[in-house]
C-alpha cells in the first residue's frame, strides 16, 4: 500500500518528470536500470529522491539493479508516444484468453448469474487491452516504415530492403493475420463471433442485469470492430506494400515525412499575413481619418417647406402653472383649464385640454371634491367631456 496521497504522487511526477523520463529511457533501452545509472540519475536531486521513487512504487529492486514498474512504464510510453513494437505472438495470446472466456460464458449461460456477469466484464477488459495493443503496434510500425521511406540516414537500398523484409515478415504479416476478419483463426473473426452472440443475448436473456452487461459488451465490440477494420486498412494499404513503396525515394517526400512528424514545431514558409486593422495599429489614425473625410464633402441639402397646415403646439407647463397660481383658489379646475386655453385658441382640441389638466397632479395643490358630486361639461373640437367639479387651493405646507 502507498501511504502518499494520489495527488502527491502526480505532483512528484510533474516536478521530477525529467528524472522519470530518464529512468524510462534507460529501461526501454536496456530492459533494466543498472545501479550505476540509477545512482547517477538520482544523485543531483539528493538522497530523498531514491526513497521517494521506492515509496511511490515507481521502481523496484532487481538484485542490485532496478526496473521501472509496469504501470509507470506504460504511462510514460503513452505520454511520450514511444511504443516499442510488440511481436504479434504477444498480441495473439489475447485470442486464447478471449476464446476461453467466451466458451465459459456460453457454457455457464444458465448457471450462477454473478460469475456469468464477471466473465462478461473480464472479456470486455481483454478486448480493451487487445485493441489498445493493436493500435499501439500499428502506430509504431507506421512510424518505423515512414522512417524507412523517409530514409533520413540515407542507408543503401539493399539495407532498406533488408529492414523492410524484417518488419514485414515478423511484424506486419503476422499482425495482418490477427486482424484479417476473413481468416477463421484470426482474433478479429473471433470478436465478430462474440459480437453476434452478445447481440442475441442483450435482447433475449432472461435476467435484466445480465442483459445490460451483454448490451455494454455489444456496444464495445461494435466500436472495436470498426477500430480494428481501420487498423487492418492501414496495414493493407500502407504497410504490406512496403517493399514496393521504398523502391522510390524523394528528397521532397523525406522533407514532408519529417515535417509531418510534428508539424507544429517546424517553421513553415513565411507568407504575407492577412491584414486586419486593430485600433492600436500604427495606421489606424490614417484609416479613421479617411473614413471621416468621406463625410466632409457635403452635398447641398434642400429643405422644402411642407404646404400642409401643421399646427404643432407644445404645452408650456411653467406658464400655465403660473397662471393657475395667480387664479387661486379655483372653484372649478376643469372649467378654468378650458377658459385658460380659450384665451389663446378659438378651437380647443382634446389633447390640448388633457395637457393642461395634467397640472392637477402637482403636489403643491390641494384638491377638494364637490360634496354634491357636481359635474361640468367641457366641449372640445372632437369630444364632449363630462368631468367632476374640483376645487383647487394651494397645499398647506407643514
Amino acid at each position, binding site marked *: 500500500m502507498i501511504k502518499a496521497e494520489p495527488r502527491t504522487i502526480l505532483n512528484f511526477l510533474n516536478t521530477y518528470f525529467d528524472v522519470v523520463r530518464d529512468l524510462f529511457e534507460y529501461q526501454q533501452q536496456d530492459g533494466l536500470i543498472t545501479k550505476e545509472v540509477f545512482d547517477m540519475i538520482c544523485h543531483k536531486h539528493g538522497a530523498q529522491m531514491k526513497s521517494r521513487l521506492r515509496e511511490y512504487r515507481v521502481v523496484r529492486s532487481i538484485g542490485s539493479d532496478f526496473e521501472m514498474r509496469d504501470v509507470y512504464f506504460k504511462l510514460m510510453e503513452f505520454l511520450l508516444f514511444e511504443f516499442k513494437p510488440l511481436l504479434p505472438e504477444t498480441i495473439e495470446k489475447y485470442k486464447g484468453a478471449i476464446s476461453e472466456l467466451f466458451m465459459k460464458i456460453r457454457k455457464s449461460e444458465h448457471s450462477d448469474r454473478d460469475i456469468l456477469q464477471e466473465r462478461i466484464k473480464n472479456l470486455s477488459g481483454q478486448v480493451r487491452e487487445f485493441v489498445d495493443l493493436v493500435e499501439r503496434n500499428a502506430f509504431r510500425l*507506421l512510424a518505423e516504415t515512414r522512417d524507412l521511406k523517409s530514409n*533520413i540516414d*540515407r542507408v543503401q537500398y539493399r539495407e532498406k530492403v533488408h529492414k523492410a523484409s524484417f518488419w514485414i515478415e515478423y511484424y506486419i504479416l503476422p499482425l495482418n493475420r490477427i486482424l484479417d476478419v476473413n481468416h477463421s483463426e484470426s482474433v478479429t473473426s473471433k470478436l465478430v463471433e462474440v459480437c453476434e452472440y452478445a447481440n442475441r443475448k442483450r435482447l433475449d436473456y432472461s435476467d435484466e442485469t445480465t442483459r445490460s452487461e451483454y448490451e455494454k459488451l455489444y456496444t464495445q465490440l461494435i466500436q472495436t470492430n470498426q477500430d480494428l477494420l*481501420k487498423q487492418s*486498412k*492501414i496495414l493493407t*494499404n*500502407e504497410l504490406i*506494400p512496403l517493399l*514496393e*513503396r521504398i523502391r*522510390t525515394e*524523394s*528528397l*521532397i*517526400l*523525406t*522533407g*514532408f*515525412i*519529417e*515535417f*509531418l512528424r510534428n*508539424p*507544429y*514545431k*517546424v*517553421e*513553415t*514558409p*513565411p*507568407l*504575407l*499575413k*492577412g*491584414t486586419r486593422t486593430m485600433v492600436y495599429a500604427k495606421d489606424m489614425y490614417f484609416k479613421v481619418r479617411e473614413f471621416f473625410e468621406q463625410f466632409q464633402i457635403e452635398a447641398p441639402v434642400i429643405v422644402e417647406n411642407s404646404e400642409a397646415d401643421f399646427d404643432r403646439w407644445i404645452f408650456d407647463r411653467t406658464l400655465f402653472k403660473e397662471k393657475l397660481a395667480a387664479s387661486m383658489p379655483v372653484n372649478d379646475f376643469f372649467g378654468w383649464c378650458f377658459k385658460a386655453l380659450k384665451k389663446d385658441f378659438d378651437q380647443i382640441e382634446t389633447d390640448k385640454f388633457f395637457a393642461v389638466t395634467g397640472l392637477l397632479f402637482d403636489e403643491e395643490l390641494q384638491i377638494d371634491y364637490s360634496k354634491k358630486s357636481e359635474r361640468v361639461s367641457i366641449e372640445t373640437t372632437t369630444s364632449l367631456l363630462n368631468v367632476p367639479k374640483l376645487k383647487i387651493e394651494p397645499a398647506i405646507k407643514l
Partner: protein
Amino acid sequence: MVYPAHHRQIVEELMSGKFLLNNEEHFNSLKENESFYTEFFKVSFDLELIMKPEFSYLLSKDTQENFSRDVSIFIAILSYELDRDGRNFIESFDFNEFTFEEIDNYFLNSSFVDLIESNKTLRDNESRRTLLNGMARRNIIYKTFEDRFTFTQAYKVFIDFAKELALKRIKGEPETQNTEK
C-alpha cells in the same frame, strides 16, 4: 510621377497575400519593374518581394501564419498519399486536375488520421473546402470548376520548403523551432 502599368492591381493583389502567376498580364509589368517594386514594398510596408520565374509573392516577417502551416500540412499529406497510391506527386501537381471527392478519399483513408482530426482546417470535407477556397483566393490552386482544381506553380514554395527541411535533417542541423500551436 508615372507608375508602371497595372500598378494598382499588382499592389492590391500582392498585399492581399496573392501569388502573382506568370500567365497573368500584370506579372510582366511586375517583372519589368522588379527593382522599383522591391524598393516600393520594402520602403512602404517593410515587406520583401520574392520574384521567381513562375510566380511572385510578398513575405511577411510574422512567421506565426497559420494559413502557411495548414497549406503545408495539406500538401505534405496529399504528396504522401499520392506516393502511397503509386502516383508521381510532382507530375500530379503539375498536370493533373483534382476533384474535391478525390481529395476527401485520400484524407479519409490516410494513416495521418490523428493529425487530420486534430487540425480544424483539415478535419472534415467542409473544412477542407474552406482551406481550398482560401488557397484559390491566393492563387495556390486554380478552380477549374466548382469542385475541381489544378495546382498553380505557387505550390513550389512548399516543395522548396520540404527540400530544405530534408537537407537540414540529413545534415543533422537543428532547425529553428516554432512555439506550439
